[in-house]
């Protein structure tokens, strides 16, 4: 039986997203040379939240935002079945500062594929990683996030489930464990 434990409820999640936005503003000022890229399939919800909130805080409507699918760049596509999602980046990221956004940082393999996939759109000046949940003990690759919603120590058999109002009807992060 998976025993669920709530890590972030909807109120905390909102506070976390707001904090991440201010951390981004601290570094990237007015976002004139910075773009946000959400990783498909689950990172786009966080990315679009952050994008929306940043535009509210900075009172501008032209922060560039795209979604990137990593399926064709993965190294494990013959080990499990993967269905591609849409990539939609209607700008060139050449010379831009990119904030790559995903919901959970686990093994780091998705991010590795994402870095590869991004090269098709130009050579960015700088790439930073933002994640909602960092499962810091489970990394397979030397990849770290710069902006982190919450760090959790979990073992590989546990599962982190991130739910969004947009698709799941509720904002919530839960840890499911076998015991």
């Amino acid at each position: 039986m998976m025993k669920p434990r709530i890590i972030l409820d909807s109120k905390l999640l909102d506070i976390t997203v707001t904090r991440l936005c201010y951390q981004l503003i601290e570094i990237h000022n007015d976002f004139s040379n910075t773009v946000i890229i959400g990783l498909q399939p689950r990172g786009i919800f966080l990315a679009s939240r952050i994008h929306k909130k940043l535009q509210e805080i900075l009172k501008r409507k032209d922060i560039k935002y795209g979604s990137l699918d990593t399926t064709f760049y993965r190294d494990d596509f013959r080990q499990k079945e993967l269905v591609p999602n849409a990539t939609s980046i209607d700008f060139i990221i050449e010379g831009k500062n990119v904030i790559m956004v995903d919901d959970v940082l686990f093994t780091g393999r998705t991010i590795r594929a994402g870095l590869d996939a991004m090269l098709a759109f130009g050579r960015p000046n700088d790439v930073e990683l933002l994640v909602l949940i960092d499962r810091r003990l489970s990394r397979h690759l030397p990849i770290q996030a710069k902006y982190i919603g919450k760090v959790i120590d979990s073992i590989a058999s546990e599962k982190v489930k991130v739910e969004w109002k947009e698709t799941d009807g509720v904002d919530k992060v839960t840890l499911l464990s076998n015991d």
Partner: protein
Amino acid sequence: MTKLSTKHLLGIKELTADDIHLILHTAENFKEVINRPIKKVPSLRDITIANLFFENSTRTKLSFELAEKRLSADVVNFSSGSSSVKKGETLIDTVNNILAMKVDMVVMRHPNPGAAVFLSKHIDAKIINAGDGAHEHPTQALLDAFSIKEKLGSIKGKKIAIIGDILHSRVALSNIFCLQKLGAEVMVCGPTTLMPKYIHSLGVKVEHDLRKALEWCDVANMLRIQLERQDIKYFPSLREYTMLFGLNKDILDSLSKKIVVMHPGPINRGVEITSDVADSAQSIILEQVENGVAVRMAVLFLLAGRA
């Protein structure tokens, strides 16, 4: 649905509607990829694909080769004209020799119907049928379906007329299977002599009057007269065929609605379709060619992903 129900792509007949939807969905993503400044993805970098063409082809061969290269696969090409087939080697021997060189997938075009099915039973590699005689040409049907969906938004409930040499056309057969599985209504139109004897068993409408067919349909898929497959004379002259079944601007403009015109190529301009129709705004012939690469990438990607 995250994977195909089949290990090979031998024909549309063996696919389920879910398979076709999965291929078309995946192809949409590849179409975005091939319109990027960098058109290549590394998905199949560890896969070697042999293109075996025992029959002439320009479009399909180039399209497959481009699809394979844009997926980063290693590609070897083979054309029967310049090979040991001329020295009397059998198909299985030829292919087994190629597979001994560690090839993972085989794309094959062959003049004999059923060649791909035959091969799949004897060879331990994934087979993609790129046309086998007058039997099937599955990737053409898939790219036609993709193009119709892209142009009209959906395929379900749409009326598609396939016009011309139905008897000798593998494109016709694959298209009929594919469109029916996706819920379209299909009509075939052509001279009685170029209709297969059992055409009614396929559940399609049959029409011998071009104008009636065009008035009925949303999409007209014009087929080439396959002179190379015709051992006897099926109609008195090409000129007469053109007068009765050729699509020209006058007929197209006189219809009560704007239909979409397709052609699988190669076009015999002035026979089944006039130049002004082929190059008109209603024609999606070049879109079909572009979509062909995306659809073939999707097929290769999905089959390679199957254990």
